[in-house]
């Protein structure tokens, strides 16, 4: 089994100072290259010796990827902006507290000092079968060991699965979906902007990736449009250990309200699927509705429709239902 060792295998380290240089290095090394942001996901892989890149391209020296600026329509956040900067940023806290809340729920202060927003949303799943070096579907093999009847799958997915049942581990991802964030992805010859909910992909589309990022692609910027600024927000993360843990289930919701009535809503949950799940059916239910307990209960019930638990994670259904119920109830 995988054992975390003190020494990681040798690799060639590159520290570019511009995005262009980073892209050139990524193109040069192809699948043998590894893009390093905060390193909190990467070094686990390296120490476990499951990933052995030939070259590591450290983005830490690229200033243009850092910081938060006021854009023409909302905020423009560099992918290498640390989670602590996001938590402390004045405008994020005043207009987009949902994102600050989510970022503040990531791990520990030390990790938030080092971890970046781009890294947090691009990190790989924590499924231990996958992380331990099993040749599962996600690792290029032909079996999901976590979906087997004998598997330990308490933390795994209850919806959105397709052969692989791993969950997306990011705390900030559902908040970005709820805020309708836009992700700028640059390659050597192209630049594309993705809606946050399209940035994350499920195993039905590509079982080896969690995002649209392919070798040679670099997430450079996350834009938070002003449309949802100062909305009514709700974020909640349930985890085994309050001080430091990945979510079991989390919910991020943004509501535009008139008094007790929800005019518009975007609700996303994470920890239940291989990607943050936007709850379209719940959004349709609550739009135009006056919030009361009955609505909140119905929203919670609709949220889990179609979900199917594995052997050890049935608890996620009521947990997800309750979190959605609480999110809707928070408007009242």
């Amino acid at each position, binding site marked *: 089994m995988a054992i975390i060792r003190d020494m990681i295998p040798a690799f060639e380290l590159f520290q570019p100072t511009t995005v262009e240089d980073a892209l050139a290095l990524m193109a040069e090394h192809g699948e043998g290259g590894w893009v390093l942001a905060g390193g909190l996901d990467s070094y686990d892989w390296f120490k476990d010796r499951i990933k052995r890149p030939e070259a590591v391209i450290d983005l830490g020296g690229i200033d243009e990827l850092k910081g938060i600026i006021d854009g023409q329509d909302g905020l423009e956040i560099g992918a290498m902006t640390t989670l602590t900067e996001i938590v402390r940023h004045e405008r994020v806290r005043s207009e987009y507290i949902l994102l600050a809340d989510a970022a503040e729920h990531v791990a520990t202060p030390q990790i938030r000092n080092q971890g970046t927003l781009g890294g947090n949303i691009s990190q790989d799943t924590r499924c231990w079968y996958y992380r331990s070096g099993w040749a599962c579907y996600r690792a290029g*093999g032909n079996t999901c060991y976590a979906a087997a009847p004998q598997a330990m799958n308490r933390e795994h997915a209850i919806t959105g699965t397709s052969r692989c049942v791993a969950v997306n581990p990011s705390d900030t991802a559902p908040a970005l979906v709820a805020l309708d964030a836009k992700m700028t992805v640059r390659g050597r010859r192209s630049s594309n902007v993705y809606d946050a909910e399209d940035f994350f992909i*499920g195993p039905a589309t590509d079982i080896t990736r969690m995002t649209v990022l392919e070798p040679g692609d670099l997430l450079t910027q996350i834009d938070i449009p002003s449309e949802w600024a100062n909305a009514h927000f709700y974020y909640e993360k349930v985890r085994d250990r309050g001080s430091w843990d990945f979510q079991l289930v989390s919910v991020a919701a943004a509501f535009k309200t008139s008094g007790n009535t929800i005019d518009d809503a975007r609700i996303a949950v994470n920890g239940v699927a291989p990607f943050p799940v936007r709850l379209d059916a719940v959004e349709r239910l609550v739009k135009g509705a006056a919030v009361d307990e009955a609505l909140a209960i119905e929203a919670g019930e609709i949220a889990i429709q179609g979900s199917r638990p594995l052997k050890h994670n049935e608890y996620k259904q009521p947990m997800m239902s309750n979190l959605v119920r609480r999110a809707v109830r928070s408007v009242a």
Partner: protein
Amino acid sequence: MGRWLDFESNPWGQEVLQGVSLELMYLAIGLAVLFVVGHLVWYRSRGFSEHEKTADIQGSVAGIPERIVRHTLPSRIFHWTMGASMLVLLITAFVPLLGLEFAWVTIHWIAGAVLILTIIYHVIHSILWQDFWSMMSFNVREAIGHFRHLLSSKSTEPEKPGKYPFDHRMYHQGIVVVSLAAIVTGVLMTLRIKTPFWEPNAYYPLVDQAISGLNELGEPAITVLPGEATGFVFVIHGIAGVALIVMVAAHIYFAIRPDKRYYLWGMIRGWIDRKQYLAHFDPDKWSVVDGTIQESPPGGAIADSTVSAPRVDD
């Protein structure tokens, strides 16, 4: 072998067979292109196109209708449903690997289920309502004659066939073997994914046992690594899949060739005309009177429609 088969390491560093490599798909695509181009060149070099134009139309037209039923409506519905499901299976299997990503798994297994249902229908239909052995027959002399003719322009031209020419029957036999391999392994693979019919199970105890066998002590006779049986299933499915790329490409190529297009029209409209019938088929092996189809003589035609009294021929 490593070039065509895909192995991955398990946590103990053992290399475990996973399936076929992506390169096999590119090889199959290359072979399909090579076959089509090669056949075009070969066909032209042998002067078959001229030959087709001057195909000898012999025999009396007495009693032979203007339109001869070749495929009944149920046969055509089967063919096109099966063809559509096969195309969907190939597209959903290989297009994502070529870079156009979409959620393919559900579409793939549903298309597979449609294929299985059409084949079950076809088997029952062909046994109970058609002349089953006319398509399944194999004659060594006929085979030798065809291969000689393929290899040498000096060899005697094979006799005109009955309803199903030799190459059609051989293609059918090939596609039966390859499709069955794909279907059996595909069903085993589908047991591992979520469907409305069962809970997924990633393990194949029976397949493991079948592959490894048991010795007199009831222990596995051959050591199979955990996941190795799965790898064999994936390999067979993968090989069948890439073989189908070549076979389906060849089938489409022959269907749209101008000199073979009467087969395509026959499969679309259900009939061919008298001229095509007399030019390409032996009335003694596929005898037709007044739009109905006769009982086939031994080793001859298939009865795809109603059977009538013996044809009065000159």
